[in-house]
Each structure stands twice: as structure tokens, then as C-alpha cells.
């Protein structure tokens, strides 16, 4: 499996303060990587820098062997990077079906799209995705009427519809109930292998359910990387999460 995404000394600094500080990270094709870290570790900013939403102040983003920093957001997406936002972003005034169909982007040219009507999209794939996110019965409803969890799934579905080579998922379970989180982890288990995924997540139960390799960020730097059991017992990570002498100090 080849390297799909490589971050080299990625930096984002305001004045003298670096939110992302010479971060190096490599994602291989087909892997599922979890990014964790306390608030302010720079996880969302890293995603912004990869997708061109913010301009980096140093370093490089190399996707599929080519440097992509400096490209416009939509061009980066066309290269094959899909993104789910932290606060789920769907089109509230459009139906669930229309949301998914807008996401199916075969040709981004406005004039070509004037000649395009729905129903002709890749039906099999559409059905698969609808089945995966479990919104089959709600296709005709306006997305604004979905519950929070369903909105998250719809956005995941939209990103999948793009069929990107790399999926960036920013807190896919934020605000979900336990049952919803469980269903989301089922979705992710099914995606594993077939897609390359980077998941930013706080919910450790969820991370435990899906994770292969975990990268821990702290103050914009990579603190640790490895499989779950190794991260769990890493003293540096424990200190970041619990503070020094967290356990058995008083006991």
C-alpha cells in the first residue's frame, strides 16, 4: 500500500503562536487513522490546512505524490479529498435526495449541469450509500427536518457520494446518543479497507471501536502514534489527558 497523504512540517502560525507546529504525518492508502488530542491541539486546523480552507504558513501537503497546498478548495476536492465538517453542514432547504445528488459531482461545470437531471446518476452506488447511512425512508424530506444524528449521517453519505480517495471526518459522532454512535461505528467498520479515512474524534469509546492506528496531537505537534493499546499506556499521552501524577497520587 502506497502513501496517499503526507504532511511535511505543516505549520499554521498567528503572530508568534503556532496552532499547528511543524506537524509530520503520513497516511497510507486504505488505512483508517484516528486523530485525537485535547482541545486546541490543532486537529481541525490540520484538516483546514489539508483542504485549503486555511492558508498554511509553512511546510507542505503532499497528496498522491503531488503538492496540493495553494490550490483552491474545490480543486483539492476534485483531486479526491472529501471532508465532513465538525458542525454538520447539509443543505437544509433541499431534500435528502437532493443533498446526495448535489454531492454526486461528475462534472463541476455549471452549463453541463443545466443539461443534467437527477435519476440518471449512478443508481446502484446511490442505493448502496442510502442503505449504508440508513436514510432510505426519508429521501423526500427536507434535510432541515432531520435529527442531529441523521444530519451527521447524511453528511457522511454526501462525502461518500463524492467517492473521494481520502475521507476526512471531523467529529462524526459529536452530539450523538450512544445508540447513534454505535450505528456510526458500524458505518465506519464497513468503510474500512475500501476507503482511506482520517477521523478526528473525542469519543474514546468510538475510537476504540474503529481504530487501527491512532495519532495523538498536542499543542500542534505529533505527540504519539501507534495502535490503541500502545497509546493507552503511553505516559506522555496520559499526562496530557490527566495531568502529571493523575492516578494514585492521593490514593
Amino acid at each position, binding site marked *: 500500500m502506497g502513501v496517499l497523504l503526507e504532511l511535511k512540517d505543516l505549520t499554521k502560525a498567528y503572530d508568534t503562536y503556532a496552532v499547528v507546529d511543524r506537524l509530520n504525518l503520513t497516511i497510507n492508502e486504505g488505512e483508517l487513522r484516528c486523530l485525537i488530542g485535547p482541545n486546541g491541539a490543532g486537529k481541525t486546523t490540520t484538516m483546514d490546512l489539508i483542504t485549503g480552507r486555511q492558508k498554511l504558513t509553512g511546510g507542505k501537503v503532499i497528496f498522491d505524490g503531488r503538492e496540493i497546498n495553494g490550490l483552491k478548495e474545490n480543486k483539492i476536492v476534485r483531486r479526491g479529498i472529501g471532508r465532513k465538517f465538525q458542525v454538520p453542514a447539509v443543505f*437544509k432547504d433541499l431534500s435528502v435526495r437532493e443533498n446526495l445528488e448535489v454531492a454526486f459531482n461528475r462534472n463541476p461545470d455549471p452549463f453541463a449541469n443545466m443539461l443534467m437531471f437527477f435519476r440518471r446518476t449512478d443508481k446502484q452506488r446511490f442505493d448502496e450509500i442510502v442503505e449504508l447511512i440508513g436514510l432510505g425512508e426519508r429521501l423526500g424530506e427536507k434535510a432541515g427536518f432531520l435529527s442531529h444524528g441523521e444530519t451527521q449521517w447524511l453528511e457522511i453519505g454526501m462525502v461518500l457520494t463524492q467517492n473521494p480517495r481520502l475521507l476526512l471526518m471531523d467529529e462524526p459522532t459529536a452530539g450523538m446518543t450512544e445508540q447513534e454512535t454505535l450505528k456510526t461505528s458500524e458505518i465506519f467498520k464497513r468503510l474500512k479497507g475500501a476507503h482511506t479515512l482520517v477521523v478526528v474524534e473525542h469519543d474514546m469509546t468510538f475510537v476504540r471501536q474503529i481504530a487501527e492506528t491512532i495519532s495523538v496531537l498536542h499543542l500542534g505537534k505529533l505527540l504519539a502514534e501507534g495502535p490503541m493499546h500502545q497509546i493507552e499506556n503511553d505516559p506522555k499521552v496520559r499526562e496530557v489527558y490527566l495531568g502529571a501524577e493523575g492516578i494514585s497520587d492521593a490514593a
Partner: protein
Amino acid sequence: MTGQTQNLYHNKAGQWLCYIALFVVLALVPVFGAEPFQLNVYSRYAVYAMLAVSVSMVWGFGGILSLGQGIPYGLAAYCMGATMQMQYQTPDDPIPSFMLTNELTELPAVWEPFWSTSIGLILALGVPTLIMTIFGILMFQARLAGAFVAIMTLAILNAFYSMAQDLQPFTAGFNGISPPNPFTAFGVTIDPYSEMLYWINLGLLALVTLVSKYVLQSKFGTIVQATRDDAERVRFLGYSVSYFQVVVFVFAGLIATLAGIVWVMTVQYVSPTAFETPFSIYMVIWAAVGGRHSLFGAIVAAIVLNYLQTELADISEIWQKAWLLLLGGIFIAVVLLLPRGLAGLFEYLLGFIKIGRRQAAPGRIAAN
């Protein structure tokens, strides 16, 4: 589980039926033998309705609040005015009279192309489109949005207004251009007081509505509405938002362009009022009152509001002034209480009618 959000209002066949019914009713007007003068007034309403459709497309569906739909409208009207004026001039008498009073001794170069009616028509279509394209690219590539777009369109509209007002030798200034003869093309003279003109205007309105409806139902239309909801998300689906915005901006501009062309055919007159700020904002008011998300609502509101205005103006001058006061009040009330306009109210009320065994839920009355 939330209820079904679709109701009778969203029935596609029903919507088409409404459009057909509307145009059938409008088509019947001359059959009931309106006076030529009345018919001309009704022909003007068709132009207003086209302008309302234009605003509905760019603002209601595209989410771009343009207060400058008068720009393409006025530019087209001036090109058309020049064309019709030059139809009257002859090689022996090449200079329009208003130029003579402004002490011009030869026809200005910019007027030369209007000798030819077909070139004149091409310019009437092409100049506004070109200007709107350049202007749109400048604005949308800079990712200007919301109120900023409103202000910039307003500013450029104003700039054209003062140009039209001030370049007297070329535009006849405040007085405007009044071509002495009706428009003639391909050997056919289009009398402003004829049924033919009414059919042309109505036909154009129908065409514009149909094409707009088509565009809205294409994937393009859905993507444009998606940019209105959340431009950033659309960008992250790999579309160039600014490109889509420019296209819808120019498309709506083209509708206003057509309106400007037929307007001059209808009234044989063009003046800087075409570029006046209030006029461009009236277009927004029509679309807002009818329902910014409904072409049907925009058309009906444009016609009804203008009909009321004409009728009240006929009563007395006080009524005419009071009407504008009332219009302001209506507009405030609609923005505050019915952001989706009368169409939105209709959608809400239809929600109470049950369709078959399905539980119908009222549509949402608020914008968000």
C-alpha cells in the same frame, strides 16, 4: 419522527397546472377586448413580471441579493432606444434631434452600429451580458456575499444612473430618448397598442418562466440553491461556487435584459429612470411579497401590485403617494412576518389539507 414535509404545495403536477392556468388567464385578456391603451398597460405588467422573475432567480434561488437588476435592464433599454431611434434617422438626416440641440455636428461613433437593427439587437443583448459577466466575476471571485453584494450592485447601478443623466449629447440626459416610430423588424412593425405586442411580451414572459423553471429543476438549479444554503459545503463538494454564482447572476441579468428590450418596444421611450435605485428595489419588493422562492408568486405579485398602483394613481395623486407609503408598510410586514412571502403563506395553509391517508404537516412559515 418529524412529519412529512411535503404537502399539496410541492406537488409537481399541481405546480405546472398553476402555471398553465396563470398563462391561460393572462392570454385571455385581449380576447375580452381590452382597449388598446389598457392593453399597452397590461403589456407593461408582463415586463414587470419578467423583472420579478429575474430577481427571484438571482436572489430567491441564488441567494444573491442584487439591488442592481436595473443595470442590465437599463443598458438593454438604452441600446434598444438607440436602435429604434436610428430606424427613424436616414442617411440624409443622420443625427437625432436631441443631439442637434446638444450641438453635436456628427453622429457619435458609439451610435454608428445602431444603424443596423440586427446589430442593435445583438448589442442590446450583448452589452448587458458582458457587463454583468465582468461585474459578477469581480464580485464573486472576491467571495463577496450578502449585504456587500447588495451595496456593490447598488453602487454600480447608481454610477450608470448618473452617466445616463449626465452624458446628455449621447443619452438625451434627463429627458430620455423617445424614438418617434414603433419598432420595426423584418418588415413587421410592432405597434405598442396592438395585440401583437401583448402576445410578444406575454410570450416572452412565458418563455422566460419556462426556461427558469427548467434551469431550476436541472442539477444546476439544485446546486445553485445549495450555494444559497451553504456556499462552503458546495465548495467542498468540488464545485466552483463563484462560477455558479456568476452564471446565475448573468442568467438573471439576461432576463432583465429581455425585459429592458421589450419595455422600450412597449413605451417607445427610455430615460435614466431605468437606472433609478427605487425601481430596482421595487423589483425586489415584488419578488419578496410574492415569495422569494416562487416564480409564480413573483409574477402574480408583480402584476397585482402594479395593477393596484395604476388603479390608485388614477383616483388621485394623494392615493398614488399613499400607495407607496402602503407598499413600504407591506414590504416591512412581509420581511418581518412572512419571509417566504405570499407563496410561503400559501404553502403553510396547504399543509393543513391532508393528502390521502398521509399525515400532512404544515410547511414552515419562517425562512429558517
